[in-house]
């Protein structure tokens, strides 16, 4: 096991929470004629997320945004390119459990549908406690205190903390999923469409909550979203992805207010706003 940080390329520094260089993923898919063909889902994508920063990756279906997230957490193996989190390379799969544990403490993910990512038989408290037991080196007292602190941080009441997922609303479940991710004390959190399935009024609560958590802990976000307004609300920088390729990236102000690329302009113009007509 090498605990040594491997530097990736000149552009990535240890100040970066996430540094991705020329990341590529090629899938072999049916070609419709009984054979197989190569489909490049992610095509030489490079970006960085600063420590404590917040990057939004936007794109439509098939743009490769979720594949990038899956490669970063290790659910998918990259075909090419390099990924580093907190300056440590994770381009290759983790070989040992110690390495997997360390990676889990660097980066966590919250998915779109908390109902399918939570154990239906486990109460919210138990779900979070399990992570604390696994990752933390806490005494029983410290663990209980941290658990209460996490539940407070995501705004779950005692009663909700003891409830099972089916007895919670969508927004409450997403709070549990966030608390569970934070329990590993990661420095980077990937939010994969984490507010997309929520009702508008609940989405606003969770967006405020995520902004508060970032302000309080200095955690970095990588938000995967199809919703430009949500990206603007939560992110400092944005990357527009189309068919696996980066269309443009920069600060939210520059990319969303003065898009340089035709595709970004089209994406922005399609969003219904007051006065918009189909």
């Amino acid at each position: 096991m090498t605990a040594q940080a491997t530097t990736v390329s000149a552009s990535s520094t240890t100040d970066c929470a996430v540094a991705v260089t020329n990341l590529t993923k090629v899938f072999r898919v049916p070609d419709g004629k009984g054979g197989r063909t190569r489909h490049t889902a992610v095509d030489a994508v490079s970006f960085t997320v600063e420590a404590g920063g917040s990057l939004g990756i936007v794109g439509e279906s098939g743009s490769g945004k979720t594949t990038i997230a899956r490669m970063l957490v290790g659910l998918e193996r990259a075909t090419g390119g390099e990924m580093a989190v907190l300056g440590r390379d994770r381009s290759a799969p983790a070989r040992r459990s110690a390495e997997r544990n360390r990676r889990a403490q660097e980066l966590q993910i919250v998915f779109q549908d908390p109902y399918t990512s939570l154990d239906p038989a486990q109460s919210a408290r138990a779900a979070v406690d399990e992570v604390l037991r696994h990752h933390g080196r806490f005494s029983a007292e410290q663990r209980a205190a941290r658990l209460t602190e996490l539940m407070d941080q995501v705004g779950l009441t005692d009663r909700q903390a003891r409830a099972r997922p089916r007895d919670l609303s969508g927004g409450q479940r997403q709070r549990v999923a966030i608390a569970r991710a934070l329990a590993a004390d990661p420095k980077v959190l990937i939010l994969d469409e984490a507010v997309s399935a929520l009702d508008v009024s609940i989405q606003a609560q969770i967006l405020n909550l995520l902004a508060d958590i970032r302000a309080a802990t200095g955690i970095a976000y990588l938000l995967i979203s199809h919703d430009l307004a949500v990206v603007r609300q939560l992110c400092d920088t944005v990357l527009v992805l189309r068919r696996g390729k980066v269309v443009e990236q920069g600060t939210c102000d520059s990319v969303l207010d003065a898009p340089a690329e035709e595709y970004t302009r089209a994406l922005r113009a399609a969003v219904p706003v007051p006065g918009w007509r189909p």
Partner: protein
Amino acid sequence: MTTNAATTTPLLEISNLTVHLAGGGDNPKPVLDGIDLTLAPGESLGLVGESGSGKSMTVRAVSRLLPNGASLDGAIRFDGRDVAAMSAAALREYRDTGVGMIFQDPRAHINPTRRIGAFLTEALVRNRAVPRRTARDRAAAVLAEVGIDDPDRRLRQYPHELSGGMLQRVMIASVLLAEPRLILADEPTTALDVTIQAEVVGILDRLRRERGLGMVFITHDLDLALAVCGRVAVMYAGRIVEFREADDLHRRAAHPYTLGLLGSRPSIDARAERLNAIPGRPRSAFEAGPGCAFADRCAHVRTVCHEVRPELEPFDDGLVRCHRVAEITRQEATV
């Protein structure tokens, strides 16, 4: 049909519609509570609300597709005829040429084992005895109308070979082929990418105007409803809480819930310091107390709100269901 009659009789008239679903034991659950709506021919009406607001249940009641055991009070009239009293034959005809439904997920509503052509022509061939060739030509023409290139090839394909946006166009085409007078669109673009959404609502809007169709458009996206519809009803817990001309809503929204929805949505133009989130979660009709259903989440709540049920009353050129709307609006104006 005389045009005169069409202008005087509303296409759809819903009065005091209350629906209960069969609950556990003797407790039927209310899901809709006193809905009043009218729709003129060629008009488009938006129903906006969150989970449990009853927007989908409203259109299911209109097409008489309520779940088993549901009981319905009040009246739904389509072109002057009572929908609840229709015989089986009349109901078939009503669902064939009266109303057409477009659902959120076309993949769940199109038979995956049959080709697009068979799906589109089945109703014409079976119900109306249109010759197969003619039906096929008509299907191809309508596919072209909803913006599908190479319709002949598409007719030979299976649903899994089409993207979600394509399949939703096929769904719209299937509704247009029946030439209904009213389209009930239940979140028709929610599962689509934003650029595809813009195209699909553009198609719906154009066809509605060209063909003089009535449309009830359900969405959780207030801004989308305002862009597509002439009038918008905001629903909460099975009730309409505000009813307004779409062009007016941003400027004149008065119900605390409507204002809350407007404040909750982040803007693409600028980051808000903090979103004005409404506390708590959306309620369903069966969770509402005797008073205002929104009372437990409302910043302006008083005792009366918990105790007395507010009525939907005229306010500032719209209809608002709130005891305190006049006071609240005055306060906001003086701040």
